[in-house]
């Protein structure tokens, strides 16, 4: 136990976690965000390129019980892969659950420049984080092998 040895240590809801720690038996979770076995998904590259957590997982910090915000079907993945610029955010905002894409009311500053719309921020991020081209990331072997 890392977090729950310090947070909510006595909460009855977390009894299964403490029991698992005591007995050494793993907790069996049901996977919510799951892809089929023929898809080889790498998480780290998405975080590295500036895809935020809630972009794919939804507002998990406000979910009492985890659910699938998006279908995670191939057409949904391709929707971003065909135009990553509309979903990118600066790396330091990736873990920010309350991040809002830049707007004229709430601009986002990066590298000293102020952005008021996602497309210009996104296209600069594509260059800055050296994303591969759309043809590259929509090649079948990117995910299927």
């Amino acid at each position, binding site marked *: 136990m890392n977090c729950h040895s310090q947070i909510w240590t006595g909460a009855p809801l977390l009894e299964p976690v403490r029991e698992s720690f005591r007995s050494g038996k793993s907790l069996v*979770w*049901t996977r919510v965000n799951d892809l089929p076995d023929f898809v080889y998904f790498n998480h*780290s590259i998405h975080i*590295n390129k500036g895809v935020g957590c809630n972009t794919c997982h939804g507002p998990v910090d406000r979910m009492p019980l985890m659910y699938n915000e998006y279908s995670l079907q191939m057409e949904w993945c391709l929707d971003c892969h065909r135009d990553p610029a509309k979903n990118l955010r600066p790396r330091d905002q990736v873990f920010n659950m309350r991040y809002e894409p830049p707007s004229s009311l709430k601009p986002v500053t990066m590298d000293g420049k102020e952005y008021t719309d996602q497309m210009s921020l996104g296209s600069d991020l594509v260059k800055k984080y050296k994303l591969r081209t759309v043809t590259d990331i929509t*090649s079948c072997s990117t995910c299927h*092998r």
Partner: protein
Amino acid sequence: MFNLSSVSIHMKMEEQDDKGHREAVCPGKKGALDLDAARARLAETKGPEFWRSLEELAGSPEWQEMMHREFPKGASEWLDSVSRRGFLKLMGASLAMAGMTACTKQPLEPIVPYVRQPEELVPGRPMFYATAFTLGGYASPLLVESHMYRPTKVEGNDKHPASLGGTDIFAQASILEMYDPDRSQTIASLGEVRTWGNFVEALRGPLSAQKAVQGAGIRILTRTISSPTLADQMRGLLKVYPQAKWHVYEPVNRDSVLEGAKLAFGQPVETQYKLENADVIVSLDADFLSAGFPGNVRYIRDFAKRRDPDSGKMSRVYVVESTTSATGAKADHRLPMRAGEIDQVAGLLNRFVEQGHPSDVFSSQGEKFAAAVANDLSAHRGSSVVIAGDHQPPGVHATVHAINQALGNVGKTVFYTDPVDANPINQTESIKDLVADMRAGKVDMLVIMDGNPAYDAPADLGFADALKNTNIPLRVHLGLYQDETAELCQWHINEAHYLEAWGDARACDGTVSIVQPLIAPLYSGKSAHELVATLAGQPDPSSHEVVQNYWKKQHSGADFDMFWRKSLNDGWIEGTTFAPKQVSLKTASFPAPAVPPPGSIEINFRRDPSIYDGRFSNNGWLQELPKPMSKMTWDNPVLIGPAMAERLGLKSEDMIEIELNGKKVTAPVWVQAGHPDNSITVFLGYGRRRAGRVGTGAGFDFYPLRDSADPWFIAGVTLSKTGETYKLATTQGYQTMDTPVGTRPLVRTASLDGYHKEPAFAREDEPPKDLTLYQPYPYEKEPYAWGMAIDLNACVGCNNCIVACQSENNIAVVGKEQCVIGRHMHWIRVDAYYQGDRDNPKAYFQPVPCMQCENAPCEVVCPVGATVHSSEGLNDMVYNRCVGTRYCSNNCPYKVRRFNFLLFQDWETPQLKMMRNPDVTVRSRGVMEKCTYCVQRISEHRIDSEREDRKIADGELQTACQQSCPANAIVFGNINDPESRVSKLKRNPRNYSLLADLNTRPRTTYLAEIRNPSEELES
């Protein structure tokens, strides 16, 4: 979902219905092979210049028929007795019930985290640990890839001096050996499952009784041991029981080498070669390029380096051999000669090197060859080497030592060290003594560690009979399998595999590697260290403690912990390499060779190229691995030469009875081009009775013919036809790229002089790049464009790439029945092409992976878009889209695509599930698969490099075949980087593509093979 695979397994094959059908299925595999026609075609040069089989050479009508098809007639049909209609009827009901729901929702899967996750583990990222694989006492240093603490792939340790990163097929296939579901899983005594505690208890009485007689009744039989720790333990045991005896026996032993060294130098020495310094290499029946020859991995690397025709120092190789082998195939000049006559050639060489040849008149071909070779050797004193084959008699070895000394090669291309074997004794004498003691009733306790003498001991000793009928009170067997020997022992201890246990071993140069486990023993197996420690009276030993304690005694420096961790990290122990030692020839005269009677037929016993001596019988990857020259799988037919076959009226697949000294074995025949006349070769290791599901019953057992007096060759066998035939599964002849109309220049070769005169001889004019209906794509603008160059000069046909690919990509084993109809699944194949006289042809190897054509013919014809092109130039295979029309493989001119006709993958056995590489899909029935340039490795390295904001360095990303190739023949990399090794090789004038005139623009290209013939022998 109804498991369709279970249906195919349970269907019975009706024999009588099948037989007629089968004949039609495989034309050309049997039937009249007209060797006369073959010879005639060669004589008139009407036939193909390069041919893969004698059938092809003869141009038989069956072979012509085969050329029209990719698979033989009926391969894509349902061969079982249940008709297609019947099958659908059976399935129809269940399909309706399963409900054809579209895949909209994934079935729920659990995810189970660690409670306490090990610090260094990142799930999904493999880790690599250094260890070593031992065969015949010689260690191969390895780095084993481990996914979530399950070893999945064996790689070479590229920093280790003895191998420089190469491995051999046995090391690669050892992963399957560890996960073999047929491995012994318990300690057993007389058929009952027992515990280790039970065994220790059972030892108590006998051991204390033996203490009283100083161990006079104890005999321990081991295989060759080089492990310093185990040898030390054995000597310690012999101190506790001074009258006990340690016997050593392996069927593929090096007694002749030992005796030869003792004859020449008076002491056992290890002979090592520095082939990178050799301008002239002469092999007297030494297959030094094949797995099983000590040090072969390093020798392949050094040999390949010296075959570079652009270096100005290309070596020249002469081989005299008694059977066909990969080393003979790579020779510039090859002389097939019976094993018993090679002694004379050695003598002639010795004489000619000293004195020169007296005249220009030669009384035999052997003499002419020897004279030319001697001239070349004399012209290269100090930079030549003569190597004698392990199975040649001691006299030949001694003569060869003398020749090397006379030429001044010692210290330059040849050097001597202490033996790697920790107990170098004559093993045949050792087991003879043991059996004599057994029959005399002197043995009270026999411990057989890791051997199978009931199957492979010399036949005249009758070891199995002695073991069974001499009433030895306590017989203990330690082994990986409950094999023929375990059956006859009261106690069987299941052994821990080297990937599960601690130990140590010496490589061919003496360097010690610590063997560390990659996984806890799957079945609580015990290692030899634990058994010997228990026999010596140590309570509850662990192999970790035993090995570590030994090295604590050896390590004189202060910080043992640092030393231990460094040795484990590097993969070897610093300072253990043997230094060369000075030895001097005791005598210059050696026993006169025995001359075999001229008309008699000689039989050669050889270790099998993929099964070795029988220990790997149950390894499906090795059973299905095509042998280097005959491309045989699953069987070990008797090799005979074409001339003798003609004389005796034999053709391939005929059954013959071989009689030697009153013993008989019946086996099928294989006519092998290049095999010496009046001689047959039989391979050991098949025909086992208790090997497991895969090995039992496969092939033919020739050990009953093998006596202790002449374990390697003897003249005087008689052959007689039985009139029956036996179907053999060979991959030769399948996946041909030739056409019925004419052959294509697939293998391109020239002599060194020819190459210097016309360097670009191999290039043919490719059609212009824009002569295509395909859309052009600017691959040169991408950061990476993957390509591969295969240097045919370096490839020695060792087949390591095939096993490595099988291990990395979860390729299934299909079994003999399926191999007969050409359904083997190897993604890379090594074709062997012959050229010239069928009695002594030249041979060439050509590994063929997917060509990854830029204008791929397979991509346009897929109706569902399952094979498309990636932006980096890879021809992608998307298994989830494939519906199995097989149009792509029909259209592929290289025939590199493999189809899953049935569910070849095992989805049930838990051990095999653990073995698989999680980064590669396990394919089901009905999908096409092929080489992907190891796209999983490409993705992994690309993602890592992008995260670290750098480019992938050349050489960092290696395909499985490239990484395993001991010769560095396969080079893969980024062709958009002009400085990468692959780009440089593609700029070499020898570079050519296969079938370039089809304008497929393959990314895999070849460097033509150059041979370096001597003028003296060519004329």
